[in-house]
């Protein structure tokens, strides 16, 4: 019996692998120590969909393909992040993400009602990823004008204005196993084989920063770029804290709870890259030895990468690093651009948001700052100050879309040129809004989250820069990829304010009291208007005692 069953299962598998032919799946792992105390681990799983029909799905998740075709999405980025990436200390990640949930997409120019498609898209994704993305609505969505550019290959003939772009972030969103579970199910090997088997939820949530993402874009399929393929990139970014894992020497068993049992059999390449650049300051030894060590020169910064090529039938591998005992004290050199954001003011009446952007480079850097304030935090553009000045020559271009209560957020974009070796402070004031009592969340006094600001930069140097160039898909394309300048989109830290709250327990009292006061006016006015003054004989004044006696007398009757 069981033999027969096995044969059927085998047949089933074979029939599956026949159809695999057209899609391409790659998995990559990038590990970079962030001295002194952290370790950056970045997984990326790339599925290239070469078939252009939506009816057949081979390696790529059918659900995502359907979403793309149904809502006519050109490009989609979704990240679910817990924790804050510290740019000043850690440098730049391969892909930055805002705390909480962040979703942005470009729709095809043929879409007539972008807002309706956006709403449906977010609702569908909320079901797919078990996240509250259905809270994305007109009142927290903006259409970025300058800060975001599609990563994919776009049709030259058509005009992709920002009206087809939508951006929303939910800073309150929590990220946990329930998001990782459906995310893993989109992978061809799910979590049973390959790099995804390392994603043990108990360990990866015990990090300083964890972010899962899905990025779908269109990539050129030939040199002329007359045809395109969909690229589905699923990413996981983790920052381990050596204090939490209790050791400065790391290994897969320590980080993920197990070694790696080969790559995913369906992947065309499974590679692990370990950044050895920090070896100079904090020397460590890798075990087992890498297959090769590549030196990459990119924009004036040298990077040493140790490469492991994992085959599906490789034996269990437990890559680890051992640090030599003589720990040198190292000073981290901040990246060319870093920033900080905080809220000003005390009390619950007026406040301000400050974004400090530091350019440590010797040349000016052009950036676009996108401030996105929710409707309950009305910012006043007239209070915008750059380094304390109302009129600043640093602003090259400005876009502002004022918010409307309960309808849409405040959206400000500033194209600025940051002078070399300087810190620029952007301050804007806001006023606290008093909401209706039913608009407050159940934990009203927990505070309200303000999303991150977006900073899109044109970096002149690739120092600390690890992003994949726009025309590349794998980490391999990073090697020696020098360009005149390097694009990067960063998210600042979020903030939190606590709005003034009414008394939630007494709506009836308030309604009654206010109506009583109205009645206090209505009564006398009604009397004045409808009655006239007359003299009424009052008789001899009676004493209080007599009055009480009279009262009883009446009762007897």
């Amino acid at each position, binding site marked *: 019996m069981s033999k027969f069953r096995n044969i059927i299962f085998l047949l089933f598998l074979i*029939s599956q692998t026949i159809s695999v032919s057209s899609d391409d799946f790659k998995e990559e792992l990038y590990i970079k120590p962030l001295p002194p105390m952290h370790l950056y681990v970045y997984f990326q799983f790339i599925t290239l969909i070469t078939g*252009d029909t939506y009816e057949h799905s081979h390696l790529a998740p059918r659900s995502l393909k359907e979403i793309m075709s149904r809502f006519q999405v050109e490009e989609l980025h979704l990240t679910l992040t817990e924790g804050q990436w510290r740019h000043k200390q850690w440098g730049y990640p391969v892909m930055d993400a805002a705390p909480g949930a962040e979703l942005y997409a470009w729709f095809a120019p043929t879409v007539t009602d972008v807002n309706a498609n956006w709403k449906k898209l977010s609702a569908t994704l909320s079901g797919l990823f*078990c996240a509250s993305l259905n809270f994305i609505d007109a009142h927290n969505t903006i259409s970025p004008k*300058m800060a975001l550019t599609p990563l994919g*290959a776009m049709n030259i003939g058509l005009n992709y204005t920002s009206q087809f772009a939508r951006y929303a972030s939910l800073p309150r969103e929590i990220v946990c196993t329930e998001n990782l579970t459906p995310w893993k199910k989109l992978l061809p090997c799910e979590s049973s084989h390959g790099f995804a088997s390392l994603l043990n939820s108990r360990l990866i949530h015990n990090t300083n920063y964890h972010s899962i993402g899905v990025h779908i874009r269109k990539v050129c399929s030939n040199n002329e770029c007359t045809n395109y393929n969909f690229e589905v990139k699923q990413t996981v970014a983790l920052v381990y804290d050596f204090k939490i894992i209790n050791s400065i020497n790391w290994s897969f068993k320590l980080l993920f709870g197990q070694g790696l049992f080969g790559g995913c059999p369906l992947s065309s390449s499974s590679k692990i890259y370990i950044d050895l650049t920090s070896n100079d300051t904090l020397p460590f030894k890798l075990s087992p030895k890498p297959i090769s060590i590549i030196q990459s020169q990119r924009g004036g910064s040298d990077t040493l990468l140790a490469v492991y090529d994992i085959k599906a039938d490789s034996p269990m591998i437990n890559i680890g690093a051992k640090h030599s005992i003589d720990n040198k004290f190292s000073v981290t050199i901040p990246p060319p651009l870093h920033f900080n954001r905080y809220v000003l003011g005390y009390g619950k009446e007026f406040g301000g948001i400050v974004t400090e952007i530091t350019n440590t480079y010797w040349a000016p850097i052009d950036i676009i700052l996108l401030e996105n304030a929710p409707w309950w935090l009305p910012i006043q553009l007239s209070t915008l100050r750059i380094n304390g000045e109302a009129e600043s020559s640093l602003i090259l271009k400005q876009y502002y879309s004022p918010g409307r209560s309960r309808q849409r957020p405040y959206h400000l974009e500033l194209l600025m040129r940051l002078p070399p070796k300087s810190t620029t402070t952007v301050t804007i004031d806001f006023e606290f809004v008093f909401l209706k009592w039913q608009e407050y969340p159940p934990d009203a006094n927990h505070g309200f989250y303000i999303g991150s600001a977006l900073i899109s930069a044109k970096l002149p140097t690739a120092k600390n820069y690890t992003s994949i160039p726009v025309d590349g898909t794998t980490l391999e394309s990073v090697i020696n990829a020098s360009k005149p300048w390097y694009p990067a989109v960063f998210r600042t830290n979020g903030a939190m304010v606590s709005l003034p709250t009414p008394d939630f327990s007494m709506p009836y009292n308030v309604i009654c009291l206010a109506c009583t006061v109205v009645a206090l006016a209505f009564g006398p006015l009604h009397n004045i208007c409808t009655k006239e003054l007359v003299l009424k004989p009052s008789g001899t004044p009676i004493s209080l005692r007599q009055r009480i006696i009279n009262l009883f007398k009446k009762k007897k009757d």
Partner: protein
Amino acid sequence: MMCAKDILQCTLLIVSILIYSEAIDIPEKFQKSNHTNNWAVLVDTSRFWFNYRHVANVLSIYRSVKRLGIPDSQIILMISDDMACNPRNPRPATIFNNAHEQINVYGDDVEVDYRGYEVSVENFVRLLTGRVPPDTPRSKRLLTDEGSNILIYLTGHGGDGFLKFQDSEEITSQELADALEQMWQKRRYNEIFFIIDTCQASSMYEKFYSPNILATASSLVGEDSLSHHVDSAIGVYIIDRYTYYVLEFLENVHPNSKKSMSEFLAVCPKHACISTVGVRRDLFKRDPNKVPITDFFGSVRPVIITTDSIDIIDIPKRKNNVNTTQIPEKRAYLPQFPVHLIQNTV
């Protein structure tokens, strides 16, 4: 070529299902149920860290029904707050039913359908009655029919005749009864097994008037439903008594189990629960003694084996989209920064 392959796959799949299903047969002593599918609606209505135990409660039931065979797509799990990845949880991504960390009820494979602020009275009633907004994804809909057996489990803070949601609003027993009646009128269920673990829990099912509902509650009116024990590592009570014993019982149930519903109803005697477990049988037509527990907690489906030949007709191919006939357009990667704006201004 493609078609032939598809047919091959289909037949293989059907054969394999048939073979698997042979192994399971329904014990004779049980009354036959005419349900065709099983659903579960599991709701935790409490927010805030100190209500950790309610999340542990609901996840205990989730774990059991999933283990007994109800697929995630047919479980609607509503959790009001994040306990697993809460910053106060020293063991991220875990929720235990016991201070000795015996069972991680959260597990590695969990799908929460409604979470955080989404868990509201409105969403709960909409879910039950099926009156959800048009954009609602499948996983947030209760797509039941007249052949569905539904397990509804509620936990949170309750009072006489109401259950609090998120500490800010409440559903009354009458509203709940009306929602269930609406479900019955819309033929959205075959039978419902209703479990509630709150204080004064039995008050919530007293107003029910729709047929085919078996209801049980952790406490009678006037009684509190008590928690089991505190975990000093996290400083909060870790699970409620009733659900603790329910989980203990369900851990010993397997998909072929011959246990009956009446055994489940007696799972927590007064000396263990301290509160009295209430049961309402009058709306339920079958004898709980003769109802297998898997009618609600599992997903055992009656399988008819046929020896007749089945014609699998060739499915007509869908017409190709216009896409394929489209003239290839020239595409390009855009510069990742609006360089033209800078050039204009400088």
